[in-house]
């Protein structure tokens, strides 16, 4: 998983919060956001790595066409993070093999 320092401060203006987890770590998302937006606004910009070269991937097309953004949601593998809206208690998992300590 790669994170990026500019993730913390984007303002969100919808009241309420949705609690989800990403790879076991609690995250707060905004109601109505998709998983991709919830991850990116929590500073997580890549959550999958490629089979051959283990390169990081996150959002690319943003509309469900490229499948770069795949995540596991509540045990369902291969869901597109850019299309699925966050729900309270959702358990999201990435598939980066090298997550050690880089959160």
């Amino acid at each position, binding site marked *: 998983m790669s994170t990026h320092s500019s993730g913390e401060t984007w303002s969100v203006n919808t009241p309420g919060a949705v609690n989800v987890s990403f790879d076991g770590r609690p995250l707060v998302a905004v109601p109505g956001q998709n998983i991709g*937006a919830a991850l990116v606004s929590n500073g997580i910009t890549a959550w999958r790595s490629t089979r051959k070269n283990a390169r990081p991937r996150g959002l690319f097309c*943003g509309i469900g066409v490229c499948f770069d953004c795949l995540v596991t949601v509540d045990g369902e593998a291969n869901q597109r993070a850019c299309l699925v809206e966050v*729900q309270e208690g959702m358990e999201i998992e990435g598939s980066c093999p090298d997550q050690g300590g880089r959160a």
Partner: protein
Amino acid sequence: MTPIVSADVAVVGAGPAGLAAAVAAAESGAAVVLVDAGAQPGGQFWRHRPETVVPEQEGKGHHGGRTYLDLRARFDAARGRGRITYLPGLQVWMAQQLHPVQGDDAGFTLRTTPTAAVAALEASVGTQTVVARRLVLCPGGYDRQLPVPGWDLPGVMAAGGIQAFIKANGILPGKRFVIAGTGPFLLPVAANIAEAGGKVLAVLESSSPTAWLPHLRAAAGVPEKALEGAEYAAVFARHRIPYRTRSIVTEVLGTDHVSGVRTARVDADGRVRPGTERAYEDVDVVGFGWGFTPQMELPLSFGVQTRLDADGSLVGVVDERQQSSVPGLFLAGEVTGVGGATLAVLEGLAAGTAAAGGTVLPEKTAARHRRFAEAMHRAHPVPPAWQDWLVPETIVCRCEEVTARQLTDARESLGARDTRTLKSFTRAGMGWCQGRVCGFAAACIGAGSGVAPTAESLSGSAKRPLAAPVGIGELAALETTDN
């Protein structure tokens, strides 16, 4: 067993074209089923925050908001009267003709699968099979991409993807942006980012403003576009966004995330002019857009007649009623030529009316918009020399991680000149996205530098046995119901 919904007219896609088609068909007296992969109506242009969370949205943030509100009110009214059955959150993965070669009486069936197989959401969507006498396909398109070194780094997004992110979520995917590619669409993307509080370091347009000169007449035919242009110019001035023409990103920099870009000025063919290189640092999102690729797999699965449009895209051939070469099958929106939302609505209205058996009057406005779109395509071509920007290691197929070298090797030593042959030798286009992202670039590489890809090659990459990935269960169910 999968429930079956039947109707006079089935419409696929709830973007500008599909919404208009569904409304027009319903208002002409047909029973309509509208299937859309999205969770709510709008498609790409009218994408908005989830209505469950933000119920009152004024159609802000995009032009044509009034058209949307009008169509939406008519759509909701037709649903209320039971004339439109709306099936959101479902992807059509296979469309078939019920009685092939039966002239006007052809019927169609659509197999669907939930867009997201998430337990929390699945209850509301459930797979359905749709059967209808007439079919209107309005599946839209997606950003066309040209690979450059580093474009597979996280933080690189499709220009339209950034737009979709902002519209759907009301936030930005980063802070400091560079937008590059070609076409007028780069302007609203940059303007939207700036208005949402992001910093646009530069917009790099590979073409030149003088490219417009031969087409001024067509442009003048659509004055509202000039007005839009003036509004973007004002936003650019207010936010001091540099708009650099004849400029491209030659490389995206970063190790596991975008950190910057290298850029250069180019000549009219897109060849880098030595000595013009510069770099932008501290960039966290790069947006690329080289026009749009119409989503052709559903039309192609019926074998509709196709042509190459002025932008080099493969599109469906239609008559003045938007009917394709397959009787009873209508096409509207991007799949008949990329031309913007206003044109998509006009085509959708015509297609819906015709599919319901109504009379379609000739449309002067649509013709003006088509001329404008063609002028736009000619002024913003994919630079013929774009393949020079590649280095051998550049990833072309992001899914299967196929490099430019593998593709040029397959072309040079194995004679692979079209997407199908390239695919079988290199696996380019065989991954999750089935060549949607790399298809155009692979077709260009197969054709060779400076040569535009043929319709056959583009069609080879756009023919997909399944229009969306489906579970084994759905395939198995198909076997048992059809055998």
